């Protein structure tokens, strides 16, 4: 037997306003769980035979999976009423309420059959939210149901309604709570990693469920009363994350935050009414965020205000009526959903217009690889406008195959035409952006280090505006900066990973920290990241590379990789092995010269050739040592253009190819060619000055001439023998395993 006990939040105040902690789980992997209101809800879990124990709410989530399987008895404070969705087998089962108050027993009228969207009939993915709405006990139970299952379940006071499956992963949820309001939530599962995000596609009209409501549409007067969908509606965001925050997964939080922004307008409209507390008694603790942003006054006069005094198990007339009406609502909503789905099926390719709509299941392509798509560009321009970041114009004609990529001119920096308000973009970031775009800071590691150092400065100079939370506001503040840097030069994979890390760290900051402490902590984390992922990783890599550098080796390197240079210098100074290095270089960047300079300074015997000569030098080479921009999940190595060529020729000469790469540059993307995601550099770089004359100088005027200055290429995994990482030496096919292990560690 499993008993869940929920304690009222403010048991001292009127019982009609108490709210309870909840336990809800939508899916085991990510746990779309949230708790409202209760600071310390606890559940007693007495497993069969096992000793009973108190589970704090935070730990409830993982336990819930086990609990749900045989959720037999759920008890709620009588003041809250009861809510119940269950599984197939539990129809008509008894619910024993045992809380701080009289014990009451409820019977579940019907249990909706829930089906987990991923794992067929294993009955899960339901959420139930017994949020205290006074005595009415508005509870919302969400269930995922298979197509056609309809609403077979009606819990006592609230209703829980049909989710339906559509497309591959997205499930639509509608919940009709009470009888007047309906909200439609759409949960979609982002493909790939099983992340779930929920968004409200809310038509907040009573009794209806709209999926395509436009953003600007005003909710009707009844809407503010809406008690439903707390978790995913914008107005309830504040309370759900701050009070029940720990139970929300991090991705959820981020998503919710996004939601918040998108629904700002709506929120503003609602604010006037929504700010009213349901009853003054609940505001006992001002620090405690409001549990219920909506007024909890009974939505209809028919619902007698004295419901609270009645035992929630017994059905008053009003309740019965409410139930009936809710049922009708649900049916109507379901019909509409069906209709909407059909409509959508007819025009599946239609781009989504409203930001409140859930994004498509297919992972969105980043803007910087769909330059040829005018719609995407308009969207980008709009976004930049919102963030007050100038849009950089493309330069010159592009080779057709690469028309989806940006091509900027170095001579026209982003800041030339437009001044950038320092309120939006930190001056340090502007400087960094210009350094990126001018190629002053170059190389994956250097760019990442510079970025993090600037972000450190940004955090130092940041102060939280009043009425905002640091963990939210800072992430929002970072966004325009990141867009700006992206405009200067597309972000590298290393930078992308670092930003992802930083955002996660910011959003995970505990609320209890003071601002100064939080900022200190963040700077500390950034320092740690720099040290562990870049400095110490390089040390580990150069140590393990020693094993592979033997006496009398001839090592071929290409371009300029800080890691490879360091490895060679370390090997030269720290071991007594004698080896020789051949530095291969290529136009237009001639980065090999920098490598040459560094190696020669350390006293390493070097030879310098251009890439055209590699088939000549390869017979004498014993190993090829390459750096990498990123390692992709299929084992491909993304690196400076020309690397693939070197690997190919080395393979032909049977020379082992070794790639050095830190694990923080591992990327979950898969790429088999260099076309899809790449970067175009300034084509003017290809112009050669010879005898005082610029050859190719007038390329832009010539209609039949196009220049291509590609930055990266992709080396297929079978050309690479070995990858030296900070975890040791691995074949490049093992990248996904490393990513998986890393993800497990991070969670």
């Amino acid at each position: 037997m499993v008993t869940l006990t929920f304690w009222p939040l403010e048991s001292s105040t009127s019982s009609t306003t108490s709210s309870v902690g909840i336990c809800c789980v939508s899916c085991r992997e990510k746990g779309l769980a949230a708790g409202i209101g209760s600071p310390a809800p606890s559940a007693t879990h007495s497993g069969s035979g096992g000793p009973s124990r108190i589970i704090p709410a935070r730990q409830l989530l993982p336990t819930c999976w086990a609990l749900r399987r045989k959720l037999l008895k759920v008890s709620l404070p009588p003041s809250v009423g009861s809510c119940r969705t269950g599984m197939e087998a539990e129809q008509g089962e008894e619910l024993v309420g045992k809380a701080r108050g009289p014990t009451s027993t409820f019977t579940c009228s019907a249990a909706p059959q829930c089906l987990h969207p991923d794992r067929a009939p294993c009955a899960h993915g339901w959420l139930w939210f017994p949020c205290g709405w006074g005595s009415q006990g508005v509870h919302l139970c969400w269930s995922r149901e298979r197509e056609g299952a309809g609403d077979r379940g009606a819990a006592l006071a609230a209703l829980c309604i049909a989710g339906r499956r559509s497309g591959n992963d997205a499930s639509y949820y509608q919940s009709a709570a009470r009888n007047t309001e309906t909200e439609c939530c759409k949960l979609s599962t982002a493909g790939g990693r099983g992340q779930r995000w929920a968004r409200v596609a809310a038509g907040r009209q009573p009794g209806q469920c709209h999926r395509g409501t436009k953003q600007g549409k005003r909710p009707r007067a009844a809407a503010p009363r809406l008690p439903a969908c707390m978790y995913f509606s914008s107005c309830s965001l504040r309370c759900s994350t701050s009070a029940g925050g720990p139970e929300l997964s991090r991705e959820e939080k981020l998503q919710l935050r996004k939601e918040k922004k998108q629904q700002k307008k709506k929120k503003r409209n609602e604010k006037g009414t929504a700010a009213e507390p349901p009853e003054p008694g609940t505001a006992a603790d001002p620090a405690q965020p409001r549990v219920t942003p909506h007024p909890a006054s009974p939505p209809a006069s028919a619902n007698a205000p004295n419901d609270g005094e009645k035992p929630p198990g017994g059905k008053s007339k009003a309740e019965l009526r409410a139930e009936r009406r809710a049922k009708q609502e649900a049916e109507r909503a379901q019909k509409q959903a069906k209709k909407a789905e059909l409509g959508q099926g007819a025009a599946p390719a239609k781009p989504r217009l409203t930001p409140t709509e859930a994004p498509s299941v297919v992972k969105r392509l980043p803007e910087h690889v769909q330059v040829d798509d005018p719609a995407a560009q308009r969207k980008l321009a709009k976004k930049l406008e919102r963030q007050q970041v100038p849009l950089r114009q493309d330069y010159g004609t592009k080779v057709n195959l690469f028309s989806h990529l940006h091509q900027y001119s170095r001579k026209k920096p982003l800041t030339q035409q437009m001044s950038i308000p320092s309120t939006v973009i930190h001056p340090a970031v502007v400087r960094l952006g210009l350094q990126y775009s001018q190629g002053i800071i170059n190389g994956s590691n250097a760019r990442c280090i510079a970025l993090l150092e600037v972000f450190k400065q940004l955090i130092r100079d940041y102060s939280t505006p009043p009425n905002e939370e640091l963990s939210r506001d800072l992430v929002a503040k970072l966004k325009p900066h990141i867009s700006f840097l992206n405009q200067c030069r597309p972000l590298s994979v290393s930078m992308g990973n670092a930003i992802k890390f930083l955002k996660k760290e910011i959003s995970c900051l505990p609320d209890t920290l003071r601002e100064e402490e939080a900022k200190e902590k963040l700077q500390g984390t950034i320092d740690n990241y720099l040290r562990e992922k870049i400095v110490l990783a390089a040390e580990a890599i150069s140590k393990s590379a020693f094993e592979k550098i033997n006496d009398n080796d001839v090592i071929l390197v290409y371009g300029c990789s800080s890691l490879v240079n360091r490895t060679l210098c370390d090997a030269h100074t720290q071991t007594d092995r004698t080896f020789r290095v051949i530095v291969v270089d290529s136009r237009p960047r001639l980065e090999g010269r920098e490598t040459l300079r560094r190696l020669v300074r350390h006293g390493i015997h070097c030879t310098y050739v251009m890439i055209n000569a590699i088939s000549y030098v390869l017979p004498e080479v014993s190993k090829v040592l390459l750096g990498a921009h990123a390692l992709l999940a299929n084992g491909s190595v993304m690196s400076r253009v020309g690397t693939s060529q070197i690997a190919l020729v080395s393979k032909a000469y049977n020379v082992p190819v070794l790639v050095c790469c830190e694990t923080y540059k591992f990327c979950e993307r898969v790429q088999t060619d260099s076309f899809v995601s790449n970067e175009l550099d300034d084509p003017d770089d290809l112009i050669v000055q010879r005898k005082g004359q610029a050859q190719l100088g007038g390329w832009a005027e010539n209609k039949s001439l196009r220049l291509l200055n590609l930055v990266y290429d992709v080396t297929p995994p079978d050309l690479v023998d070995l990858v030296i990482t900070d975890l040791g030496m691995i074949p490049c096919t093992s990248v996904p395993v490393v990513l998986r292990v890393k993800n497990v560690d991070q969670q």
Partner: protein
Amino acid sequence: MSTDDLIETFRAQLRDDPDVASAVAAIRALLGFLRQDRGETIQGLRSSLRDAIDTLSRVDSSVAVNSGGELFLRFISLTSLEYSDYSKCKEIMIERGEIFLRKVSLSRNKIAKLCHPFIRDGARILTHAYSRVVLRVLEAAVESKKRFSVYVTESQPDQAGQKMAKALRKLNIPVTVILDAAVGYIMEKVDLVLVGAEGVVESGGIINKIGTNQIAVCAKAQNKPFYVVAESFKFVRLFPLNQQDVPDKFKYKADTLKTSQNLTEEHPWIDYTSPSLITLLFTDLGVLTPSAVSDELIKLYL
């Protein structure tokens, strides 16, 4: 337990049970060593076990002794040892050591079960040198009423192929012993190549008796499947790029290393076969492609 005792135990294991793999004998010796260790700290125990592994791999230069020892150490210390009492920790380690030994001794049968369906009725199989796992697999195939014939290379310099042929004849399997140089000649007649391994390296390649690489190259050239059967305790954290990159301690017999002045004049005993030449690896973890080996090793050591 002194070093001499350890070596003696190891040798006795090999003597008493000729069918035992050298790695299993080493693990047994290490378990005995663990039991009799008089150390006071976990750190001390670890380092003395490491020394013991070193000692054993100097006695027997095979890769499997090294890898088996390392995996044993990894397995027993992978558990949480958060007890204040040292003897309690040690007890747990010994217990885990025994579990490991049990798992290891069952692995050969598991492999046989996995692999024998790949031998079809009427198949002609080429194998190399003497391998107990290959023998067990072929035995399992015979038990399941498959009729097939086997070519065994003579595998000089110790003529291990003759030993293999003898063992196969005992099982009533038609055997032909061929010259090491006749591999290319016989390859066109063969349906599949089945070899054991001394060690499986991180890249998914194998280290095995000298001559394996040339068989693999021949098989690749004629598109014949090249199967490897090896227990998972042979997985070793080593990543050779080519033959030259394989450490000398594996390539030569332990006493050769001690006595020889110029190693280039000695015959190496093993060679490295690269993963691109291997079709599948049959291990007690399942049937693996070469790239999956590294995945298993990462899971184990990270």
